[in-house]
């Protein structure tokens, strides 16, 4: 497994069963049935799509960044990567990727981490964790804040160096780049289209993403 496994999709837009533009700062929660395919498109480039996954049949079993990167012995996701839960269950497999850099370690922005990373006066600013919490609060009374686990940041560039450095770089993504994943088991996907205004990862300009689903 290497950094970029460039694979274009042959799926056609007119055959999609779902197509939605998600503005920055907005959230989305959707359950994929086994075999269904979700494409996330970075419409204008350098956007971060913060994404959580849950076993739809057992929502207490959340996506595990560590199980996922540990099994493939690589911290980056690309075509062929299988996203696993904390218990080791396979949720989705990435089947197409034209970007090649998706972060597994940076997590989501929150009001509280913004106060640490930038300044105390950023506390009121909109952030991904609030979006996640609102989506989960509206979805299902069985989930709580305890179910928030480290998420995937599709299209976000967080290089880790051999000496252990970790930083947030300008995105390597560009307008129209996409990543496509197929559900292996029924999977609830929660996305926060990142509203961050303090970080160069999105050129300080959050933009929309497009969410497209096919039934196979």
């Amino acid at each position, binding site marked *: 497994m290497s950094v970029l496994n460039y694979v274009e999709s042959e799926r056609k837009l007119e055959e999609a069963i779902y197509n939605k533009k998600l503005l920055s700062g907005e959230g989305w929660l959707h359950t994929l049935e086994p075999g269904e395919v979700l494409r996330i498109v970075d419409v204008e480039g350098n956007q971060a799509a913060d994404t959580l996954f849950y076993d739809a049949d057992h929502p*207490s079993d959340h996506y595990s960044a560590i199980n996922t990167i540990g099994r493939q012995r690589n*911290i980056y996701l690309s075509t062929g990567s299988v996203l696993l839960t904390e218990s080791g269950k396979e949720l989705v497999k990435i089947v197409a990727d034209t970007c090649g850099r998706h972060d597994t370690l*940076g997590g989501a922005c929150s009001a*509280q*981490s913004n*106060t640490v990373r930038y300044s105390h006066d950023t506390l009121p600013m909109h952030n991904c964790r609030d979006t996640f919490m609102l989506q989960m609060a509206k979805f299902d009374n069985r989930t709580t804040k305890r179910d*928030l686990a480290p998420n995937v940041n599709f299209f976000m560039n967080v290089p880790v160096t051999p000496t252990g*450095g970790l930083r947030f770089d300008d995105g390597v993504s560009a307008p129209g780049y996409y990543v496509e994943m197929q559900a292996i088991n029924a999977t609830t996907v929660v996305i926060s289209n990142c509203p961050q205004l303090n970080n160069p990862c999105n050129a300080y300009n959050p933009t929309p993403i497009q969410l497209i689903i096919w039934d196979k």
Partner: protein
Amino acid sequence: MINTVSSIITKTIPAGGKWSARIQRGKEITFTALEDGANVSILLYNADDTAERYNMPDTLKAQYTAFLTKGNVLMTDQGRVLASIVEDMVGWHDAISGYSTRLMIDEKYGKTTYQENRNEWYRSGEENLMVELFRNGLTTSDLSPVINIFSKVFCDEAGNMNFVEGHTKKGETVTLRTEMDVLLVLSNTPNPLDTRHTYQSTPIEVKIKDAEPVKENDICLNHRDENRRAFENTWEYVMLTKGGIQ
């Protein structure tokens, strides 16, 4: 007087062992490797509100690091400091490899059973942590990325993860200082990326005693501006819930 409890608490955690404890703010927790090649997987929670816990991404990104050593702090999802790393002879503790699972242990080292092997059977981080979490009223949904004390895993330019054999030597120590009342949960089990072909777990010692108060020149407080702001968030919380920061 029936007070026979020492102010210094020392625990030896055997190979494959597990432990959990609620530990007050203002304590030093020193981990000592009693043999070469130790690995201890730990999780930390706010003892008063376990929904608040050690957060790997927030800890790493705020300090621009993919590993932990002296000067670093362990942050919660609420932008506060659970504990600071105030001393470290090892220089690199792994934050990205997680705990060993039952499946992984069986596949890698061969299946063992209690029936056959009695207490020498190969324990997994997964089961040890599940038991200790459950003991403290938590469930598997509270599992999240651990810190593997004493282990080094680095990434090459392509993102491949590499385990370093023999990273920690017998007698080496690392010391945490608690900045909040914490629940500490630990499993003394192999690192999941350990490249050795036999089950390697060695005993460790955990020693807990009172810490000196945090001074203005504290290395963890001054490591980065981000650390200071996380301390400020913590002090505000302690002021609100405990009535003061001393």
